[in-house]
């Protein structure tokens, strides 16, 4: 039988791992999408609204 402190530690440990993992996933996902957008822009593909904003706004 584990001591009470072990259950508390396990709970906080798993909570920390889950929350940190979730945060890292969201950050990594955002970075990867931004990289893709930059690559597309570098290869000359632009959004229609971005092209329009070069001429006149909206």
């Amino acid at each position, binding site marked *: 039988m*584990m001591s*009470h*402190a072990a*259950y*508390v530690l*396990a*709970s*906080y440990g*798993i*909570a920390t791992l*889950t*929350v940190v*993992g*979730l*945060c890292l*996933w*969201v*950050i990594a*996902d*955002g970075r990867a*999408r*931004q990289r*893709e*957008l930059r690559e*597309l822009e570098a*290869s000359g*593909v*632009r*959004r229609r*609204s971005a092209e329009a904003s070069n001429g006149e706004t909206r």
Partner: protein
Amino acid sequence: MSENSLAIRKFSDLANPTRFLALADRVLPWLAVVTALFFVVGLWLSFTTEGDYQQGETVRIMYVHVPAAWLSMMCYSVMALAALGTLVWRHPLADVSSRAAAPIGACFTFLALVTGSLWGKPMWGAWWVWDARLTSVFVLFLMYLGLMALNRAMDDPARSSRVSAVLVLVGFVNIPIIKFSVEWWNTLHQPASVLRLDGPTIDPEFLRPLVVMAIAFTLLFFTLHIAAMRNEIWRRRVTSLRRLAARSAGREV
């Protein structure tokens, strides 16, 4: 311009994904800092307040378990509101919001189940029992996973948004079942002791860290949700740009 129409314009501005991205850039750093501060205070309170005279140290599990469980239900309610936004108002960001919330909700539900299990073993003598509260939260977890799978299976958001919105709304019936399961049925899980009509029945010694941790978790949810929505908007832009590039490449040949 009257004040009222200005307010309406400000609200409808949020429907523009570009405006949303600008707002997210401005708000996210502040939200992240405030969330971290609340977690520091919350965790400090969680470990410095006294243990319970019956439960001893295990009462500290409550400060993660209860906020995670609240958040698992709040996240689904946010998704249900977003589903209404998709079906009724066809708000362009509603589907983005619902899709971005599903993995976050799944994580909080997972946390509620695991910490509940770790609390149940020393207090009830069992890791798991199929009582109404535990079973209905487990169903909620499966629903999050199902919605995530559905969103991944259909890669065209224009087609998947309505299907997943209907599914979210049908699944919302589970939320009142979770909330009132402890009153409707005879469960091993205790009934509510904070959000009650006759006021909290929990000692202020435990209520203080619980409230701070609940605020910290709620702020964490909104920070992650806004960031995930931003990612989802970027993801859709990448998809549409790739389609645009493929189409123009086809024309050149």
